[in-house]
């Protein structure tokens, strides 16, 4: 199956498998996409991070020929999404937020049908269905109707269905939304395996953690516009990498601790924020050294700490960091500035 993938791919390495320029899609007065530019280099994963209603799904639907954009253009695997939809459909795979399999049919019947629709000979379609069910650990459930599958099984079947044609570009629209952590890890493993086999992936997600796990590059989208993009590490640095959560033994000391940290002016620390309601002090940090320095400083000043934890920034925090940054640099209208 890898052969087909390689043959389909553009022979020049380092080129973009997906190029989107000025993509616009309005639904009535709602600007689902309001001039989106992005690139996905061949063989890499681009994470498109954004909240509900940001335009992620509309983007994927435009790039998979389900929706015709109002303006702008997009080229995927060398094909224009508007002018060459039929050619493009041979090279893409889509796994949506909602499983796109026939619920009444069994897992095997779904995969066989898709194989036949992709012009595989009967025998090949049969063996491909068996092979993919095996690979996605669905062999035991092969004969059960998809409606009886658990959420994770359904998502895996959906991924398997997208893989039958060995697409060179895969769109994964929130592939783990609504899944429990164990199933989520299974899906992540599969995605990583697909990438290892050479697929280019455009992944939309609401979770920073998912983006960090899977993506090489990140694009943050909000209200149909791209508000930041860059490497995962760059973006993480931008938003403070991790957040250190400190709970003092005495909640009354929160404000004093925050002030002590700010006045100390530790190198690279953007700022500490006390949240009295939660009894927590939030400190964005970039490195283990900073973590040690913060805790050390608080200890030296005689503060007693009850609990310390670190967390990846939530989507909210990412947005706060990005939009906060934008307001201090009003001229930074070009999203790519984040990387500078």
């Amino acid at each position, binding site marked *: 199956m890898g052969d087909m993938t390689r043959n389909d791919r553009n022979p020049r390495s380092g080129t973009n498998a997906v190029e989107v320029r000025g993509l616009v899609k309005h639904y009535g007065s709602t600007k689902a996409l309001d001039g989106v530019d992005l690139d996905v280099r061949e063989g890499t994963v681009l994470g498109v991070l954004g909240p509900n209603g940001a335009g992620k799904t509309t983007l994927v639907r435009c790039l998979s020929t*389900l929706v015709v954009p109002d303006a702008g253009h997009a080229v995927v695997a060398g094909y224009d999404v508007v002018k060459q939809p*039929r*050619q493009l459909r041979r090279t893409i795979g889509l796994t949506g937020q909602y499983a*796109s399999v026939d*619920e009444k049919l069994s897992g095997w019947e779904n995969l066989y*049908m898709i194989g036949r629709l992709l012009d595989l000979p009967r025998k090949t379609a049969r063996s491909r269905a068996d092979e993919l069910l095996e690979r996605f650990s669905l062999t035991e459930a092969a004969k059960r109707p998809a409606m009886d599958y658990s959420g994770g099984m359904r998502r895996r079947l959906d991924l398997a269905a997208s893989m039958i044609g060995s697409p060179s570009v895969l769109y994964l629209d929130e592939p783990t939304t609504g899944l429990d952590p164990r199933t989520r890890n299974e899906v992540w493993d599969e995605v990583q395996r697909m990438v290892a086999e050479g697929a280019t992936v455009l992944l939309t997600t609401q979770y920073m953690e998912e983006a960090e796990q899977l993506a090489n590059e990140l694009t943050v989208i909000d209200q149909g516009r791209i508000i930041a*993009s860059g490497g995962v590490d760059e973006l993480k640095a931008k938003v403070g990498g991790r957040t250190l959560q400190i709970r003092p033994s005495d909640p009354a000391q929160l404000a004093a601790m925050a002030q002590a940290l700010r006045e100390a002016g530790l190198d690279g620390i953007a700022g500490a924020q006390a949240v009295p309601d939660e009894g927590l002090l939030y400190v964005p940090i970039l490195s283990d050294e900073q973590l040690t320095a913060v805790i050390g400083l608080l200890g030296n000043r005689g503060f007693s700490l009850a609990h310390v934890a670190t967390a990846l920034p939530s989507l909210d925090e990412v947005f706060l960091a990005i939009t906060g940054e934008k307001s201090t640099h009003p001229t930074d209208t070009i999203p790519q500035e984040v990387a500078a």
Partner: protein
Amino acid sequence: MSTATLTPTPTGPVPVRTHSDEGRIGLRANLRHIGALARRNLLQIKKDPESMFDVLLMPIVFTLLFVYVFGGSVGGSMGGGRQEYLNYLVPGLMAMMGMNIASAVGTGVNDDFRKGVMDRFRTMPIARSSVLIAKIVVELGRMMIATLILLGMGFALGMELGTSVAGLLAAVALSAVFAAAIMWIFILLGLAMKTAQAVQGVGFLVLMPLQFGSSIFAPTQTMPGWLQTFTDVNPLSNLADAVRGLMMGGPVAHSVWVTLAWAVGITLVAGPLAVSRFRKRT
């Protein structure tokens, strides 16, 4: 991290491939796709046998109801009796059942096409019409089963074929062709309307006057003049007359040609509209 990705050049898109016929879907591939999709519809029926109840019961219920409720009286006024009416009714019912099955296609399509699997079909390299054609093929199969049961009922109650087996087969074929045309209309409705209930409601309101305001259930001679004007132009009258003529004898040429003309006309208009609606549905 690649700086190229961070600062894309807005003027440098990937060269667009230009092979214009690369995406064409050949006839054989198209038939194969229709086969695979029809198989899907058949599997759905196999897993949900209750969905065949309409096809199994409709011919039995309608035949018994009309023959025994109206048979004596209508048949009497036709100069015969219940037997006379049975010979009149069964060809009419054959024409009618196609319409009822066609309207069920509308609700089925509405239901089906709101599901995620349609997104998958629409992102695959298949002709979008093949999804709709597969549905029609399977529904015609369902109609054939209903027709067999109807004919079985008719013969069991004593219906006499006035022509030949060839005439009977021609009658079945003609009603199938016309039903297929009507299915395009209901597919279009099913795609255009928001809910399956709405499709069902509209289907019922449209079909009732068309079916009863025709020669399906009773001869039109005793109807008032204004109604006869309607029944004369009603294509269901032509279909019923044609089927009746092919099965029981009498002149058929005019009604057969008019029915075929309707079928072709409806297909040519509603077919492309339905496919384009399916293409654009988001």
